[in-house]
């Protein structure tokens, strides 16, 4: 049986032949036992599959799917935050939020010190400009307490996200602490951190936007969504962001390196060209870096 015969049988079963071709095929069936056997066998299997029950989701599966899609596409209507478990993004935003809150409190304290309005304004401005995270938090502010803090100090951007750790504790930090960590607070972008199975730094070329898009597409193509954005990531970003000369850091993706969890980080120095680094999550050790 050649390929043309195979296609003829498929066409015959699929009803794609015109009447003349169909008559010819039926005549062939009558006289060619091998052709007929193949046709009968193929028809029987096709009928068996056509009659198979259609697969449908259970009610639970359907609800799970809808909820997951709306969550991942950010289509979920606003819900009371107390009843919503913290998302990956919120969890790793939390410590940064506390730093922003601490910065706001510190600025407020400085304003109230009897050192003259000009000095106070300078310090408050320093806090604002050295805390890029604060700007990001502004649009997500849900905590009225944090809002009060910012009005007191005039540092309107110093708003903590919902779910941030105890702000009073953060507010107890010394001014020195805030200045040191504030200078390198990680800059946070408002998207979920994608997970890509493998990252080849040599292939990460182009602008930061290109790299970010590439990560999202790789994660999307791989269909992966590993949740490695845990406390290790928070700690690693805080460490990197707190390093001297670093203006901002941004987690672009989680991945694996030599069997260990790792993170791809865009690092923007105060001066010079941004770069992209690969760090292990356990020890926050750099295992590779390329220019972004």
């Amino acid at each position: 049986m050649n390929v043309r015969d195979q296609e003829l049988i498929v066409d015959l079963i699929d009803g794609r032949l015109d009447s003349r071709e169909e008559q010819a095929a039926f005549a062939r069936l009558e006289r060619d036992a091998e052709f007929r056997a193949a046709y009968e066998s193929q028809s029987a299997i096709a009928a068996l599959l056509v009659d198979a029950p259609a697969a449908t989701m259970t009610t639970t599966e359907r609800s799970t799917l809808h909820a997951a899609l709306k969550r991942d596409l950010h289509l979920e209507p606003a819900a009371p935050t107390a009843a919503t478990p913290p998302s990956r993004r919120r969890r790793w935003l939390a410590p940064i939020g506390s730093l922003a809150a601490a910065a706001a409190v510190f600025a407020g304290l400085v304003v109230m010190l009897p050192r003259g309005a000009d000095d106070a304004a300078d310090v408050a401005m320093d806090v604002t400009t050295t805390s890029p995270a604060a700007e990001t938090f502004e649009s997500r502010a849900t905590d009225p307490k944090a809002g009060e803090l910012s009005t007191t100090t005039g540092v309107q951007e110093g708003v903590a996200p919902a779910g941030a750790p105890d702000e009073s504790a953060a507010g107890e930090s010394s001014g020195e602490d805030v200045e040191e960590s504030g200078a390198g607070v990680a800059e946070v972008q408002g998207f979920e951190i994608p997970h890509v199975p493998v990252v080849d730094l040599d292939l990460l070329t182009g602008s930061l936007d290109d790299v970010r898009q590439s990560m999202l597409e790789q994660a999307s193509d791989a269909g992966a969504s590993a949740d490695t954005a845990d406390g290790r990531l928070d700690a690693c970003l805080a460490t990197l962001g707190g390093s001297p000369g670093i203006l901002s850091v941004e987690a672009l993706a989680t991945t694996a390196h030599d069997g260990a969890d790792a993170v791809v980080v865009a690092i923007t120095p105060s001066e010079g060209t941004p770069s992209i680094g690969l760090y292990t999550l356990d020890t926050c050790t750099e295992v590779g870096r390329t220019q972004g």
Partner: protein
Amino acid sequence: MTARAAEDRELIRRYLTGDVEAFDELVRAHEDRVFGVCLRMLQDRDAALDATQDVFLTVFRKADRYKEQAAFSTWLYRVAVNTCYDHLRRQKRKRTEALPEHFDPADPRGRDELDAVELRPDIEVALAALKPEFRSAVLLVDMEGMSLEGAADTLQVPVGTVKSRVFRARKQLADELGNFAPGPEHPRDEP
């Protein structure tokens, strides 16, 4: 263009303008068929649900790149099949990994609800033995009722390739399931 195809295009346009209801309608219109393709391809309900989620995420995240020359459903099932290929590749890689210590294979869902859509076990096994590209072809044509041209568009291969894959898939299934060729008592064999 079918009414469904026209409606899908309108829903995509509405979704791109931020209409969440359009999103809901699109998902509801296609979720069972996408899930069906994924279930028959992956043969595991949890994996199929994960894959279905990935399919819709991919489609909605790339909705702005949807070219209206093709039917939305063709694009959707293309993404579904490719997503299943990816899952199968990952499954293959993970096959040697040990199961979790407290692995519990029991499915808490109602058995009756699941039984209603299960294939005969021997058919499941026979389908599982097919190469993914043969499985997808026979699945789209015979189980999803797609035309050969539709399957070719979805799989991005020539129609002739689809015919060949369908033929070979059915032949292998017949071999696995026993001889489906007519016996000597069949009327066509009588003189």
